[in-house]
């Protein structure tokens, strides 16, 4: 799928203490592809939200579970896949958050998936052999 393009990998535990490291990892490679500052900050945020959702929802805040991040690019796109072995996300059951209603109910959360969809050009959820994958693409 990558056509012999460049590919990089990082494996971390399911802990929010690694968030900055994961953001910096994708930002560094996005920069090397020549993306704009705005696009790099969009990718940082999308990856942060996806990894945070894995920690909170797939692994329900259980620490030390594996999360693998892969990033690759070719002439037309940069893609990032994040994989976990936790509970899978069901995109069909997801509804965009009504922020006003959430504020009234003093709820938080539910915004990450919405942000990822806004920030990236393509988002796909796959599950294969007990592994969940979110694949996010930015067109170059």
């Amino acid at each position, binding site marked *: 799928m990558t056509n012999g393009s460049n590919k990089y990998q990082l494996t971390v535990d399911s802990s929010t*203490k690694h968030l*900055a490291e994961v953001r910096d990892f994708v930002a560094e490679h996005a920069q090397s592809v020549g993306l704009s500052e705005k696009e790099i900050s969009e990718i*940082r945020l999308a990856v942060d939200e996806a990894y945070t959702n894995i920690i909170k929802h797939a692994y329900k805040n259980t620490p030390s579970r594996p999360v693998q991040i892969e990033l690759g690019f070719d002439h037309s796109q940069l893609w990032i896949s994040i994989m976990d072995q936790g509970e899978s996300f069901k995109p069909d059951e997801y509804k965009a*958050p009504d922020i006003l209603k959430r*504020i*009234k109910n*003093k709820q*938080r959360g539910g915004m990450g998936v919405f942000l990822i969809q806004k920030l990236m050009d393509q988002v796909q959820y796959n599950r294969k052999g007990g592994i969940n994958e979110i694949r996010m693409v930015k067109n170059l």
Partner: protein
Amino acid sequence: MKNFSIAKRQINDVSVLDVSGELDAHTASQLENSLKSLIDDQRFRIVVNCSRLDYIASAGLGVFMAYIEDVRGLGGDIKLTNMNDRVYNVFDLLGFPTLYDILDDEKEAVEGF
């Protein structure tokens, strides 16, 4: 790890929180503790100055969502000021500018109470 800190100032009856660094699911609890402690101290006029905030994820916005109703119900508000464009863009994507008082300048926010 680097990356997030909060300092508190008082301008008359307005409490100003200066937030710096990166606000994400790891650091959001620090903001939450600061807001809680202001509310416990009956300080409901709150300005969060974001001039040194480099980054925010939705976990950071979630903290503001969790407390704004309480603070407004007690006659106060949480006003946000001095955001850079990248940080503002995240609030904007989620429609916060119609729900929160987001201002360019801290002075304007303090005097607006």
